[in-house]
């Protein structure tokens, strides 16, 4: 659900900070996104007005400053689109369409938001941590990556007052191993009413979805999908989704019906039926 209409306009780069390891913080002026964006929403961006690469790229919105009419992206250079964006200098412009997509839903009163991030999937959780805090709720971030340099936002996020539990596969910072390990430890305590929110690599999202299923928890994940347009017209980013009352899964656009989905509705690899549909069928039987 989009609260406000997205706006398609040129966005000048007003700030750029290198975080090492091909990670950047990029701040653009784009009033509609700065004022209207909610955590989990994204923008479609392309550096300058050049022809190559042909398509814009989706980027999760990390932070907004409505007063300055700016928003900030946390970008890793991974291909020609993100590289071109990270090469912009302040004063250069990008094409920007946003804010787009369905945001994370605010947890109900008394429910803790457990945020699970892998690598640059941490992007939406700066804004989300603030949203949860503003609504009087509690949030805790489990932040994982391969090695310490893949967690360049660790200190900054901790400095905002958000409890952060880091994990790296090589043990260079925080827990050694996958980010789901400290999450499972936390869930085993148990922590009281909690809802899971995840953004990162597919395998991590699937692991979070499995955990949610095993423990009958609600969970939302932000899916990364190859998007051509961001508006639901190219139908390139579809994912198989099946709601509780639906007889069969359907292709749904990650850009307009997502990128945030309830994990129970997603058809994960190897599944014939979604957890939501299975649950509904069992309830009837």
């Amino acid at each position: 659900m989009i609260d406000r209409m997205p706006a398609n306009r040129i966005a000048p780069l007003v700030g750029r900070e290198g975080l090492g390891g091909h990670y950047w913080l990029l701040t653009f002026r784009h009033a509609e996104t700065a004022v209207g964006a909610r955590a989990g929403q994204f923008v479609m961006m392309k550096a300058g007005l050049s022809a190559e690469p042909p398509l814009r790229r989706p980027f999760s919105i990390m932070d907004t400053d409505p007063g300055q009419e700016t928003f900030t992206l946390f970008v890793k250079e991974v291909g020609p689109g993100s590289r071109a964006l990270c090469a912009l200098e302040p004063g250069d412009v990008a094409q920007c369409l946003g804010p787009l997509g369905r945001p994370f839903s605010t947890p109900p009163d008394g429910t803790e938001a457990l945020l699970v991030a892998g690598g640059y999937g941490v992007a939406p959780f700066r804004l989300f941590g603030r949203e949860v805090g503003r609504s009087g709720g509690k949030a805790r971030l489990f932040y994982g990556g391969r090695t310490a340099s893949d967690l360049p936002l660790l200190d900054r996020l901790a400095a905002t007052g958000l409890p952060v539990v880091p994990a790296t596969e090589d043990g260079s910072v925080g827990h050694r191993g996958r980010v789901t390990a400290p999450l499972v430890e936390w869930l085993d305590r148990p922590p009281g009413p909690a809802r899971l929110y995840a953004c990162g690599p597919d395998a991590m999202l699937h692991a979070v979805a499995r955990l949610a299923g095993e423990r009958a928890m609600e969970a939302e994940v932000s899916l990364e999908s190859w998007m051509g347009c961001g508006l639901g017209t190219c139908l390139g980013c579809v994912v198989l989704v099946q709601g509780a009352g639906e007889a069969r899964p359907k292709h749904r656009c990650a850009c307009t019906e997502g990128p945030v989905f309830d994990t129970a509705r997603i058809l994960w690899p190897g599944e014939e039926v979604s957890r939501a549909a299975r649950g509904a069928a069992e309830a009837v039987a």
Partner: protein
Amino acid sequence: MNLSVEIAGLRLRNPLIAASGTFGYGVELEGVVDLSRLGGFVSKGLFLEPRDGNPTPRLAETPSGLLNAIGLQGIGIHAFVRDVLPRIARHDTVHLVNVCGDTVEEYAEVARVCDGAPGIAGLEVNISCPNVKKGGILFGGDPRMTHDVVAAVRRATRLPVIPKLSPNVADITVFARAAEDAGADALSCINTILGLAIDVETRRPKLAYGTGGLSGPAIRPIAVRMAWQASRAVGIPVIGVGGISSASDALEFLVAGCRAVQIGTANFVDPGVHERVLADLEAWLERHGIDDVNSVVGTIEYPGLPGPGVCETEVCR
């Protein structure tokens, strides 16, 4: 200055149409673009029944292009007429439906449903989608079948009938004439070009379907050539489509003999592209002292070229 053009009895306020498959059902763009500023738009291809399309990945970016195999995912003509048409009707725009079918009968039935529905100005007949097993290219790759399906749609509707021709043929003029003989009011030239992109690490096609249709600036010279050939071969108007993202791109097609153009892939890159193309087109006309866009049509200077209807390029010999 006059920017309006007439195609198949339809008056368009300018020659820029949003191409099928790149503009959804129009309503997705509400609030982002002003639909009334377009010459018109063609909605995503529709069969009688809903379609789930192909598995993912469906898109691969290529140099100056986009390879897609969406597979005509759609809600079906009945849901479209019931749920979407009333929303489109709120906009002052010329709306064409892209008609699909697995069989000649299905094309005709979809056309019949459209015929009785308000808010549809005309039909584009999709005989050229390369990404479905049945229909599509099967009809567009054989002149007899092109004739049969266009004739069946013609009999089923009073609306203007505009077949969209495939570039995946040796001589498009044969298909252009077959469509004209079958009663087409205009032609859209061209659909996507069949392509294949391979991931060399896995040695598998980059698209789940395997092959796909190539669009974007990469195909523009091919599209201009084929639209030009088609426009010389028939008396009905030709709408040029393929890789347009600027006014000069659009002008190439107009100069080549097209009465209007469609903008496709560029809508993904910039949903506001038609505003920029329109402003630049107007500026170009003004700069050249031309007060009617129609007077540009077919003004190609091609020394040594024989008269209309005779094609002297390599592919036609």
